[in-house]
Every structure is written in C-alpha cells, then in structure tokens.
C-alpha cells in the first residue's frame, strides 16, 4: 500500500519548467529521500504534496486523496516541516505547540498531553516558556518538527530539515527522524546531502532540473556511484599531467585547475598504497590526499556527467 503516489507530475512557473514529469511511490511506513541541489524542484514537490501548490499536470495522491480534488482530506493526514523554520517568533515554544493543536481542532486534553510529550521528546522543556526569538537554529528546527507532529499525522514531509545546522544538531535531528520512522509513519524527506539520505531513507530518488535521474535503495545507488573515493591534490602544476597519465582506476576524474585526481575505490589500504606507490616512484609530491565517501556532487557527476549546480 502506497501512502504517496506521484504520476507524471509537471509544474511550470511561467516559462520555467520546475518539475518535468516525475513519478514516485512511497510505500506506507517507509522513508523516501528526494536528493538534489538547490533549484532541482524539491521544495516545489513538497509544496504540491502538501496542497500549497496546484500541479499543472499529472496525478498526486497522498493517503489516497487526490491533492487537486480533495486537498482538505490531505491536510488532515499530513505534517509539514518547511525549509525555513516556520515557527511564531514572538510566542514561546509551548504556546506555538498549543496554537497548532487548536488549529488542528484537537480536544483540549489531548493538546495538553501532546504538547508536554513533544516538548520532552524534542528536548525543549527548559526552553518551553521562552520566546522563540531566543532559540538557537537547532531548537527552532526541532520546534518546527514538533509543531508538525502535534496531531500525530501518518504522513510527514520534511523539507531539508538539517540544512544549515551544526553537526551536533544534525545528529540530534537524525535520531529524532529515525525514531519517527520506527513509530510507523511515512516520511518524504528532501536533502542536499547524500550522507543524510543514505543514513535515514529506505529509498533515494535523485532529482535534477525537475527530473528523476536515478532511483533506488541507498545501497543500490552507492554501488553505482562507488562506495568511497581516493583523491590526491598534486603539489606542482607541472607534475599534474604526468600524474594524470600514471594514475588509473574506476571512474577516474581529473581537474587540472584544482590539480586534483580522484578514483572510485573500495577504500582498502591496498588501493591507497597503490596510488601512493605510483606517485612515489615517479617522484611526484602531493599537497593532500583523502579517502572520502561520495557526496551529492559525485552522484551528479556519475549520473549527469556534471557536478551539482
């Protein structure tokens, strides 16, 4: 049973094609990550799913309701957490939660109970009576997510929930999202970070200029992109050409301007040693060497031949 079904969805803003016929299914109780750079159409997709925008063509069902025909049905089932933390700055955390409960038309007792439970769950008890103006970025995001959960919606949209957060807040947010998924809800998350999609989602769809260019489990995608990359930066520009001829490997990439050469690898010591040996024998010095997990850029380079713009 699919909680979200998107069939051939297109959306234009005047002459600009934002979504160009995308199709996606999200089975109930799973998480799909929509991965893409700024301007790929992620937020537009979320806006259409949450009934804020009308699709130009194609069909979109959320919880069995057609978003264009029965938006009020959809609104009763979803929780939306936007890119910018949409919280009321002047009210305090508790007042924000209570107001949302009232706007969802929940009974008074339930509002009280849910408010306290969410403040606890999201580590906001101490800040509950403080005006949101005084909150840190991480606290705002957590409150923002808490607001969308007040009515325990079965379907949740998270639009770049960790963009701009520091590493600690990001980790905290990830744990919260993981717990959420365990509770059985369906989640559609958008992100610019491959690492985030990999960490959280059951399935990843890569969005580029309004089109889905790849789709699969994190494992499938990574096996296509390569699990890790070895990258070396050559010290002297004059050595670059020589080094570029000597180093071989899968999915070889060279950038003369940055003097960088990278290959896809399994991340083993043997591979690292092989590259270093080649350079050592040729007497080529390096500036830096790194073994790193693939980024969104690598995914895009792999599927489109260009980096994420």
């Amino acid at each position, binding site marked *: 049973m699919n909680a979200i079904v998107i069939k051939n969805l297109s959306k234009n803003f005047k002459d600009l094609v934002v979504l160009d016929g995308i199709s996606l299914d999200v089975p109930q109780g799973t998480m799909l990550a929509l991965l893409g750079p700024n301007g790929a159409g992620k937020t537009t997709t979320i806006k259409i799913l949450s*009934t804020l925008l009308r699709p130009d063509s194609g069909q979109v069902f959320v919880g069995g309701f057609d978003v264009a025909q029965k938006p009020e049905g959809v609104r009763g089932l979803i929780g939306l957490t936007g890119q910018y933390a949409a919280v009321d700055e*002047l009210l305090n955390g508790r007042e924000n939660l209570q107001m949302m409960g*009232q706007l969802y038309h929940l009974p008074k007792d339930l509002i009280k109970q849910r408010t306290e439970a969410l403040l606890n769950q999201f580590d906001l008890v101490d800040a509950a009576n403080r005006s949101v103006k005084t909150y840190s970025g991480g606290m705002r995001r957590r409150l923002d997510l808490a607001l969308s959960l007040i009515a325990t919606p079965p379907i949740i949209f998270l639009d770049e929930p960790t963009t701009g957060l520091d590493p600690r807040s990001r980790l905290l947010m990830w744990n919260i999202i993981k717990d959420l998924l365990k509770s059985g809800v369906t989640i559609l998350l958008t992100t610019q970070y491959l690492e985030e999609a990999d960490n959280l989602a059951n399935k990843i769809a890569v969005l580029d200029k309004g089109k889905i260019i790849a789709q699969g489990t994190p494992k499938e995608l990574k096996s296509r992109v390569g699990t890790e990359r070895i990258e070396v930066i050559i010290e002297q520009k004059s050595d670059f050409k020589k080094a570029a001829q000597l180093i071989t490997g899968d999915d070889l990439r060279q950038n003369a301007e940055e003097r960088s050469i990278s290959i896809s690898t399994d991340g083993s010591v043997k591979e690292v040693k092989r590259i270093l040996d080649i350079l050592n024998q040729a007497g080529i010095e390096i500036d830096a060497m790194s073994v790193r997990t693939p980024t969104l850029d690598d995914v895009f380079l792999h599927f489109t031949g260009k980096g994420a713009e």
Partner: protein
Amino acid sequence: MNNNNIYYIFSDTIVLITRSLKHIFKNLDQLLALTIQPVMFMLLFGYVFGGAINTGGVSYINFLVAGILVQMSAFGATTTSLSIAMDLRRGIIDRFKSLPMASSTVLFGHVVADLVRNFLSAIIMIIVALIMGFRPEASFTDWLLITGILLLFTFALSWLSAIMGLVAKSVEAVQWLGFFIVFPLTFASAAFVPTQSMPSLLRAFAENQPVTHVIEAIRALMIGLPTGEHVWLSVVWCVAITIVCIPVASFLFRRHSI
C-alpha cells in the same frame, strides 16, 4: 476536521485573534513606537508650529488632537501589512495553509490586533493631549461615536493594508508602500492645518478625501462643532473601502493555493 464547518471557522478565528493579540504585548517596542511617534508630532505641532497656524477661534491643541489621532490610526493600520508580510516570509502562512483549518482567518487576526493596538495608543494619546491643554466638550455619546468612527476607519485601512502585505515582495517594500499611501493621505488633509489655507487644487483633494472626512467628523464631535456631512461620509467611505478590500484580500490570499 472539516474546515468548512462554521464552528471551526469561528474557533480558528478566535485562535488567530488570540495569537495576534499576544503579539501586541510581546512586542511592546512596536506598540511604543506606534504611540511615541504621534506624541512627538503632537508636541511638535502643538508647541513649535501651532502658534503660526490660524485655526479661527479654536485653540490649536483642540484643533490638532483629531488630526493626530487619525494619522496615528492610519499608520497603526499598516501594521497588518507588516505582520502578513512577515508571516509569508517566515513560512507561517504556508504552514497554516497545510492545516485542516480556515487559513484566511489569519488576516482577520491581524486586523483585529490593529484595532486593539490603535485603541490602546489612542487612550495614551488623549491622556498626553489633556496634559497639553486639550479641552474636549464631547458628551459620552459623542465619545462612543468617535470611538466607533476611529475603529471603523482602522478596520477599513487594515484591510487595505492586508492587500499591501499580500502583494509586496519584501517586508521593506511593505514599509515603503504603507508610507507612500498614508503619508500623503494624512498630510494632504485637514489633520494639521485648515484646508482653506491650501492652494486650490490641493484643497479640492484635501477636502474630499476620506481621511479629511474622518478627521473633521471626529474634531467636530470632540470640540462641540456642527458635524455637517462628515460623520455619514466617513462611515460611507470606510464601509466602501472595507467592502472592496475584504474580497480582494481573500482572493490574493488564496491565489497560489488550491
């Protein structure tokens, strides 16, 4: 959770009015700014310019209070556009629209907050005016009528202001838009000087625009002069502005969504 249910529209309105009212008291800086500026104007005109302005028999401070009060209300009414632009930019309106609620009631919440804020500012203003030597002769019924006209005027301008908040591209633009509309309407009026002293073209405008009718009506009621046609013309203008602006604002609010 049917959002067309009358009961829910009513309860959503109450929730959002409560929200906007809380904003007034959690943003006392704004309330003070909206009150202090007209008080400064009153001091400036009352003590600096007033002596040079001939108001024909009426003391200048008695003449001035109505104009200051109306100008203050007009500027106060632009708070709605600011609040709406802020809600739009912060994504609060998007959030409300994704809920099973009557989301356009958020506009009404801000408009009602303007009414309350203006009412509070007006009381402070009148107290300062009394200290400065303002001696009204209005009866209790006159005061009720003055309050009614002032609130109706605020209500009308707040809806106009809601439209500006919905069409403006940024919060800064909203501030300028408000200034460009309110400034000429209140200064090219009978607020600070009798219109008889103006050049004929300006005078024709000043005497027939709604702000002047509101000012003249309130002034006449305050100091016991004949109100002439100003009271009913004020009411007609305000009601007309409201009737035009509410549907336009609601349309603009729904424009982008389903």
